[in-house]
């Protein structure tokens, strides 16, 4: 499985899908996050592999 982590929440998706599909599946707007894997930024078309841990960094701030 692929694990996606946003703040203190964890999500799991099946391997083989793109990052964009994974974000759509877990209902996260691609515009609102930056995805990193092993410290490197990855893009929407990246195919996620079994065992991947993707850290999602929220980009929205303000008040």
């Amino acid at each position, binding site marked *: 499985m692929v694990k996606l982590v946003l703040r203190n929440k964890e999500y799991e998706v099946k391997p083989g899908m793109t990052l964009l599909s994974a974000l759509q599946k877990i209902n996260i707007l691609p515009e609102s996050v930056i995805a990193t894997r092993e410290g490197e930024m990855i893009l929407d078309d990246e195919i996620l592999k079994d065992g991947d841990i993707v850290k999602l960094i929220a*980009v929205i701030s*303000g008040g």
Partner: protein
Amino acid sequence: MKCRKCGNKASVNMRQHKLALCKEHYLEWVPEQTERFIKKYEMFKHHEKILVAVSGGKDSLALWDILTRLGYQADGLYLGLGIDGGINYSHESQRLTEKFANEHNLKLHVVDIEKEYGQPIPVLSEISHRGHGKPCAVCGLAKRHEMNRIARDLGYDVLATGHNLDDEAAVLFGNTLSWSSEYLLRQGPVLPASDGLARKVKPLCRFYEREMTAYSLARGVEYIYEECPFAEGSQSIYYKELLNQLETARPGAKLTFYLRFLEARNRGDLFIEKNMERAHLHSCPKCGQPTSTDDLCSFCRMINKVNSMPAAVLGGEDIA
């Protein structure tokens, strides 16, 4: 996805520009673009002294980093707001700001609101009964006041803030929803200096918030990731989320929204009734209906165009 400049694997994709770049070229592109906007909007020159308002967040630290890389004389100003929120928010943001300043050998002014005015922001808000139970209004007021005071007292030519395009679009969206014409007419990348008020500039106003996050990550800038405890559920965050939904469906929507607004404002098209009077209407020489053009009205031009087409284009039948 490949970097447009070198063909290596891209790290950042900006759909609104149809531009993907690798980390190295992205880190070159951001300062180049910032310099372009500084010149385009006539924000400041290299000989001027700049005070950068730094909060410890990604945008303001990125701005300080970019201006320094571009060779500007940029000092920092950190305002200690006294917000804890169970996460040591102000303390941590100050620590990260000082760490950045030390690592880059930059000058940082620190003003502690409690030391200056006797109480931290949340208490000032509570006592003054401003802001409907949230300290954000008092916080904004105090920040504007103190930033201007320090810029003026210490002789800086200009005050720079890290507002990005999402910040600007969210403010614009809010002011448009309420048709706050005074605020709309004042919004822009530069607020010129006036009596007692320092010039204020927003060099990052054309970068998406996402791009600033990417810049900070790529540069290894350590910033406070936790949100201000009082920002949760705020209107500006809600507007940003709405605009991001729009952006996902229509790449470039946020940028267009902001840039078209600036263009309209600069042309003087906003909220000026006399423009309506200036637009004199003529009678269409063919149908006699009013039109803003000197010649045929749009409808008659369209009908003329249709009638001038060969019958084959119209489906082979003569429509006459």
